[in-house]
């Protein structure tokens, strides 16, 4: 049996990237609104938060076997995917209403309602935090997937969401200046700190998994350090997606910082693609892997020649 039956694809990884980034952007915007002394992040940055989540939803729908029935994912309150879907829906609506308050149009009749802005910021903070965190919770709960199981991956996903969110807010501020200029100018420093934390966290996570409680955990971690995922992890995520942006955002040149922010986004996508790929690993039952390798995939030439 091929792996096509057994694992999520790249579209879910991209969904997690956009959703997490969008959620993180809402959190940052909300924090500035509530504690920033009456200022806001840039209009573009505030708009890109809910837009990013919409893009994530699009990829999630495309990943489904029956995309036109996507509305059904709202049905089971016990399922983490359902909680995420509801929270994302509320976050998108709330995010757009909040972002629109900075648009100087009479049509936006609520743009001067300060109290509404604060209330929306609270909603954005809570829902954005959930959206940024729930993919990690979803993966961490899956006991049968040794690389994901446990609370560590929650921190990794939340951290990556905040990094990518900060990066996009910074890039948005380069294009459309943020009223909260002081806070915007501090974003490169924040990104650098979060990237350093990410490096440390991933080192610890892989070390714990590699010396893990089961052979399945150790084998799955070995794919990252010296296996088939090692090159993409070390080059794509560590070097280009974490260390390089960590250095670049600290340089006093806007171009260098912008490049660093873009590389941080690359790191976020790479991380999610690799972690989703790692879901192929399961605690296989005795003889199972050998059995499944011998099964047809449906693409064999003799099938197409004679029967299909």
């Amino acid at each position, binding site marked *: 049996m091929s792996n096509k039956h057994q694992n999520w694809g790249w579209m879910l990884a991209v969904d997690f990237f956009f959703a997490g980034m969008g959620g993180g952007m809402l959190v940052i915007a909300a924090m500035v609104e509530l504690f920033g002394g009456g200022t806001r992040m840039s209009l573009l940055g505030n708009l890109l938060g809910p837009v990013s989540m919409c893009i994530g939803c699009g990829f999630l729908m495309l990943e489904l076997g029956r995309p036109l029935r996507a509305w059904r994912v709202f049905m089971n309150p016990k399922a983490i995917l359902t909680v995420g879907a509801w929270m994302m829906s509320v976050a998108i609506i709330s995010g757009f209403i909040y972002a629109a308050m900075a648009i100087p149009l009479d049509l936006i009749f609520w743009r001067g309602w300060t109290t509404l802005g604060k209330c929306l910021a609270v909603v954005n903070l809570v829902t954005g935090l959930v959206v940024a965190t729930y993919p990690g919770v979803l993966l961490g709960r899956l006991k049968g997937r040794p690389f994901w199981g446990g609370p560590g991956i929650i921190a990794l996903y939340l951290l990556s969401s905040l990094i990518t969110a900060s990066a996009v807010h910074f890039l948005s501020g380069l294009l459309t200046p943020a009223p909260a200029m002081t806070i915007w100018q501090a974003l490169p420093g924040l990104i650098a700190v979060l990237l350093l934390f990410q490096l440390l966290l991933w080192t610890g996570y892989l070390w714990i998994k590699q010396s893990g409680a089961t052979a399945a955990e150790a084998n799955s971690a070995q794919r990252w350090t010296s296996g088939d995922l090692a090159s993409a992890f070390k080059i794509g995520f560590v070097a280009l997606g974490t260390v390089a942006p960590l250095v670049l955002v600290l340089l006093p040149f806007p171009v260098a910082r912008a490049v660093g922010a873009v590389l941080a986004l690359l790191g976020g996508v790479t991380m999610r693609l690799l972690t989703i790929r790692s879901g192929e690993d399961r605690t296989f039952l*005795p003889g199972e892997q050998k059995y499944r390798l011998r099964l047809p995939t449906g693409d064999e030439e003799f099938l197409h020649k004679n029967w299909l």
Partner: protein
Amino acid sequence: MTRYAMVMDTRRCIGCGSCTVACKIHNELPIDIVYNPVTTIGPTGTFPDLTLSFLPLICMHCDNPPCVDACPTTASVQRDDGIVHVVDSKCVGCLSCIMACPYGARQHNHETGTVSKCDFCKDRLEQGKLPHCVATCHQKARIFGDLHDPDSEVSKLLKNNRTVQLLGELNTEPQVFYIY
């Protein structure tokens, strides 16, 4: 209240694969989907003391099924008699249940876009028949019955033999027991 369970007597299983074929034919499964593989373990040991054993795998119809809570559409349900199955009309093919199942019991059917799995041939049970794999097994290595009936064969086998459940440490409480 009925609670269906299955006992696999690995001492009797000869790895013929009849159960796999019977299930595949009667459920009209696509070529790349197998509900109940029979894996081979071995040969192990040193000649002439070699052993070869077979492990029939199937959906465990767990008492604490992680796939049911993982399903966002309530397509994955567990009946009162313990049978876990997929309501095809509700399934959107998100694969959450596949990722949640530690036994690899569920598969994504690319022809329909939904997830499918063993359901203990619940339609046959309603007619008083046994699941196809159990009825086909000429070695009587598969025994099916009501765990809550002390006179059932499964209950007696569990009482009189050492059994093991696969991946029991994951707290899924599988209802397929293996005699070894």
